[in-house]
């Protein structure tokens, strides 16, 4: 768990925004549970995990475009039913953004965006 390494500041982390692909084999509840343990006594200790589940998107060679899969047990184009193994999205396990809470005593340079 590398979350803290990403902050680069001593500010308290208010929230961490994550994207979890439907194929990543990570369950949000389990992640929250282990995050609470792992983040204890770190700047991320009370951070909220804002998790977005990314559905599986495949590219269909026949239709020539991307489609969201209806089921991850069926890798076929939802429109023409052609089997496809070309995954465009859905394996993500990404930290998208970190929300920092400013310490009340330190307000300078707060507008510079990383």
């Amino acid at each position: 768990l590398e979350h803290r390494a990403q902050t680069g500041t001593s500010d308290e982390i208010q929230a961490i925004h994550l994207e979890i692909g439907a194929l990543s084999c990570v369950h949000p509840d389990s992640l929250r549970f282990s995050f609470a343990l792992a983040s204890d006594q770190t700047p991320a200790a009370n951070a909220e995990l804002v998790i977005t589940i990314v559905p599986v998107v495949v590219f269909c060679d026949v239709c020539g475009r991307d489609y969201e899969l209806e089921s991850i047990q069926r890798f076929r184009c939802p429109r023409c039913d052609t089997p496809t193994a070309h995954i465009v999205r859905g394996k993500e396990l990404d930290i998208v953004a970190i929300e920092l809470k400013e310490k009340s005593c330190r307000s300078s340079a707060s507008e510079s965006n990383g």
Partner: protein
Amino acid sequence: MNTTPPRILTVRTQILKKNDEVARAMRSEFLAAGVLVCNLVSSPGTGKTTFLRETLRSLLAAGHKVAAIVGDLETDNDARRLAESGAPAKQIMTHGLCHLEADMVQKELVGWDWSSLDFLFIENVGNLVCPTSWDLGESIRVALLSVTEGEDKPLKYPGLFNTADVAVITKVDLAEICDFQRDVALANIQQVRPGMQVFEVSAKTGIGLDVWIRYLQSRLTEIAPHRMTAPQQPK
């Protein structure tokens, strides 16, 4: 004012970035040295170790240099079973961790003359979930499924089968006793991973091993043509 609005920092980084970087570096080294690395993944009890032991035996008999690394929570039983093949085998004990990570494999390689190998096999911890996300620098990820497990395993664990390059159905000598519906299993694999090549083997009787060994040799030829000049084809 003592309250300022929260700042949002866009970071866009992969949580497993560190593992992926180690794995990518290892993969480059393996490919540069001409070593074909396979990562074997299945549930506990599929028969990975027996299948791998017989694979090692066959490759040794064909004149290849092979070795194996095996991960388990506890005991070095599997490394000892693999060593019965005559190939060097190292055990990683994860002490509770349910999968192997790239740096664990990297540590095992230190001081080992792996670069002269034709094939290096990594037998993952028996688990159909967590190994999915952890790249070990392999060229081929092999998902194994035994006829005793049920034909719907690929549907239950689509993530793992989807990230695999090839599938192996093991213990086919028991298919009839288990009422294994081969067509259903093959269809389920294709549902979650269209186009995936499937090998059907019995490590006990040797059925199907020759096809599997020829596949490995053909993949080795792709990455290291020079290595395939000396060894012979399996009988």
